[in-house]
């Protein structure tokens, strides 16, 4: 009888101890996994602190390696493809420009050339945007500086003043705080210019553009039609307003990539005909730009 009790409690203790060791190793592994992020190349898990999980870890490592390689290859492909497209595009454009000078050009030919030109320009802008996206993904922006967001926003809006005037848009700027962010100056300008352009392009004629800087948050609002795009899809590539011919559908996804790179919060909301985009600079994480 006694022997049975000892055996049972021994087994129980053993099982409990085993479970504790297992849980401890699992927790260690979990901590390692938390360190791995998509932009960390060649992240691997170590089995040293979790020998019980060795086979599972080996399998995970293999998967991680494969995902990493494919991610790299995809990034490289986008970058190479868009760069390779640049030269033929430049040559096509130059050919059209020269052809336009021909004195024998008839009205029909000129019209056809005009059509080709418009579409080549669209391709060209699309390509530049893709190059920019792939550069952001590859973090190739070394010009890091202390950026005064309010100051730069004023400059950006000033550059858009012709467009703002043309659409008879009223700019309401309220800068309640000074926001200083350490980031690439080019990316900061691209971020703010894309936000401003978005608020102008999708505005109403005679509407307004309201930009508010408060605490560490920048809010940009504009009145406009209800979105044809689902709000949750707004930041995805090539999601665009079908009525807007000039829109490439890449502006906001560039904004989103920059926010992800620096860890800024980004939100969209819509209330009674007012579209608002909010960038929260407070969560800034220093991106290693090199």
């Amino acid at each position, binding site marked *: 009888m006694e022997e049975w009790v000892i055996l049972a409690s021994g087994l129980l203790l053993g099982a409990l101890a085993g479970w504790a060791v297992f849980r401890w190793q699992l927790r260690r592994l979990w901590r390692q996994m938390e360190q791995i992020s998509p932009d960390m190349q060649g992240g691997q898990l170590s089995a040293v602190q979790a020998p019980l999980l060795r086979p599972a870890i080996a399998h995970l490592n293999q998967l991680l390696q494969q995902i990493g390689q494919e991610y790299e290859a995809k990034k490289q492909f986008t970058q190479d493809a868009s*760069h390779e497209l*640049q*030269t033929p*595009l*430049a*040559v096509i*454009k*130059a*050919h059209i*420009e*020269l052809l*336009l*000078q021909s004195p024998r050009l008839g*009205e029909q030919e*000129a*019209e056809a*050339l*005009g059509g080709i*030109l418009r579409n080549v*320009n669209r391709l*060209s*802008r699309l390509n530049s945007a893709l190059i920019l996206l792939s550069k952001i993904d590859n973090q*190739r*922006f*070394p*010009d890091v500086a202390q950026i005064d967001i309010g100051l730069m926003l004023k400059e950006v809006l000033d*550059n*858009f003043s*012709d*467009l703002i005037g*043309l*659409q008879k848009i009223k700019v309401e700027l309220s800068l309640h705080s000074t926001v200083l962010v350490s980031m690439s*100056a*080019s990316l900061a300008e691209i971020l703010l*210019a894309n936000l401003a*352009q978005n608020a*102008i*392009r999708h505005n109403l004629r005679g509407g307004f553009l309201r930009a508010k800087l408060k605490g560490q948050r920048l809010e940009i609002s504009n009145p406009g039609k209800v979105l044809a795009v689902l709000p949750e899809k707004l930041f995805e590539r090539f999601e665009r307003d079908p009525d807007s*011919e*000039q829109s490439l559908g890449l502006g906001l996804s560039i904004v989103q990539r920059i926010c992800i790179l620096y860890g800024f919060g980004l939100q969209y909301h819509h209330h009674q005909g007012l579209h608002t985009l909010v960038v929260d600079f407070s969560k800034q994480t220093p991106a290693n730009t090199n």
Partner: protein
Amino acid sequence: MKVLIVEDEAGLLELIVRYLKREGYVCETAANYPEGYRKANNFEYDCAVVDLNLPGGDGLKLVRMLRQENTQTGIIIISARDSVEERVRGLEEGGDDYLVKPFHLSELNARIKAVRRRKTGEFSKAMAFGGLVIKLDERTVSADGELLKLTKKEFEILVYLARNKNRVVTKDSIAEHLWGDYMDEAASFDFIYAHVKNLRKKLATHGYGDFLKTIYGIGYKFEVG
């Protein structure tokens, strides 16, 4: 005027030469670094257009060399690299201007003239077409001796078209010249249309309205005899 063009993309090189030859320039070409080096070393040029990415060497070295040889040579860098650092480096090494690919030939043409003017006063400080005189330094335009009141943008459009006189200049090239990336294409075309219309009206008061031709759907042409 003698111009050296160093560009490895044969198609683009040929088109640049064809466009510039119509200006009456003598064009020398090089398709790689060694050839560019040899030509830059042995001859003098009024202007050089240099691509940075060249087979056989770095275009920046050519820029440095051209600059050391002659401070009067106008050097325009053309490159697909568009970062601020690259631009700054290009200008530090001796470039007078930096044009990012893909560019419009009309823009390159206008930049060459602007650089030459800054360097030597060539394409003198004023451009005259009959009684129509554009003074670049003073930023004024007069018709038969009378000053025309032009807005800043009208003046810029007129200068750009005049620098590409007797050629069709596309609307998107004008848009890029005026605003860079800061403009929606469709909106900018409305804008240019309005500006050109006003500009033509002002020129027409002195009988120069016909200088500005509209090429429907494509752009404009500053046509003078």
